[in-house]
């Protein structure tokens, strides 16, 4: 059984930006990098459960809108306190202009 989920159209996300994607009870953040690659992480900051989709993407960094903690959204690694715990990350692919994420 495939766990790939259709999340959005490619052009729904600007380059160097992020959108929120809710699926069932879960929430995710989907990123488009400056070089037009797509990435997906958990949607909430590991520090205080704030939606990262309201934050700022700078190159490959997402900054939380509440406390300015930072993650590398490619691997979820924490890059600036107050975040210490990594984000979960999920594979993505693009098919027929749609961004799919595997969240199994």
């Amino acid at each position: 059984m495939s766990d790939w989920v259709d999340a959005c159209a490619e052009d729904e996300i600007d380059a160097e930006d992020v959108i929120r994607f809710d699926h069932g009870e879960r929430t995710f953040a989907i990123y488009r990098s400056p070089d037009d690659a797509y990435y997906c992480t958990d949607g909430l900051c590991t520090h205080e459960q704030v939606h990262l989709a309201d934050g700022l993407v700078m190159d490959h960094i997402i900054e939380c809108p509440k406390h300015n903690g930072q993650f590398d959204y490619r691997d979820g690694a924490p890059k600036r306190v107050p975040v210490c715990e990594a984000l979960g990350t999920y594979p993505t692919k693009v098919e027929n202009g749609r961004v799919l994420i595997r969240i199994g």
Partner: protein
Amino acid sequence: MKDYTLTGESSRHAVESGLAAAEWYHSDIPRKEMKELMRRSDGPATRDTLLWLGLLVLFAGIGIALWPSWWSAPFWLAYGVLYGSSGDSRWHECGHGTAFKTPWKNDVVYQIASFMMIRNPVSWRWSHARHHTDTVIVGRDPEIGLMRPPVLRRVALNTVGLHDTWFSLKRMIYNASGRIHPEEATYIPESEWPKVIRVARVWTAIYAATIGLALWMGSILPLMVIGLPRLYGAWHHIMTGVLQHAGLAENVVDHRLNSRTVHMNPISRFIYWNMHYHVEHHMFPMVPYHKLPELHEKIKDDLPAPNPSIPQAYAELWPVLKRQFRNEEYYLRRELPPTARPYREDFHERALGIPAQ
């Protein structure tokens, strides 16, 4: 008096009632505009920092050259404000990491300003994160400046830095002895504790060396440069800082109710690095200080009218504080313009006290 400690009954109540780490009200701004507002640049903060550090060196240099004549006094007063008050705003902005685009520039200025204000750069980063999570939530916010009933003696002492500096020095020595205070342990992760202790030990050594130099010279001049300006220059950051939240609502989840924006003169704006846009800063802490005027213009129709000046803000605040001596539930309820989205009465009703008439 209410329990403002972070480990008491108020703290438990805040967690149980859902006030802790709650979702807060935000004015609507289109994503594209918000991205532009949040975008970082080095230009304004580099200019302001060169000016700030240049003036510090200039005023200290003239003060030293004229020492011990009383002619040096005005230069020490100017140096003191740039040290003991601008240090506060630089600590704040660079702690958020928003002042500069380049991370190391934020970090360098943050370390300098933290030292000036005697605020452990590790502990206070976490304390301020909590202040933004739980702004003026009793039992959760470690940075509530004016509690109810107001402790004006503390504010008066702090205009010359005495209360906070005494506390900071005690805490610095406590941390330097290898210990983390139980209240600090509620908001600083254990993995960060060694850093807190290391900084406290380095600073203790610097202050000891400064005091040693003063004793060796038989003069307080070294302390006029390091340490004492935290006292004689503190008045401006207390004057502006009190206005951030004092007299307004506690235990609400809308910064329009618990924070105050006050228009100020250009010199105070430079010293305070635009934190007079305090509602805007709390609502959108990722917006750099130099973009706050632009943010204010975009959302002002959704906010209470700013106080037009510092004296007017104090004239509004003083009667509220006097009344809080008799009734600690009293607060100033800020009126919204007709264009604003209303307060969420349903959510606040339970937590709010008696509104001002």
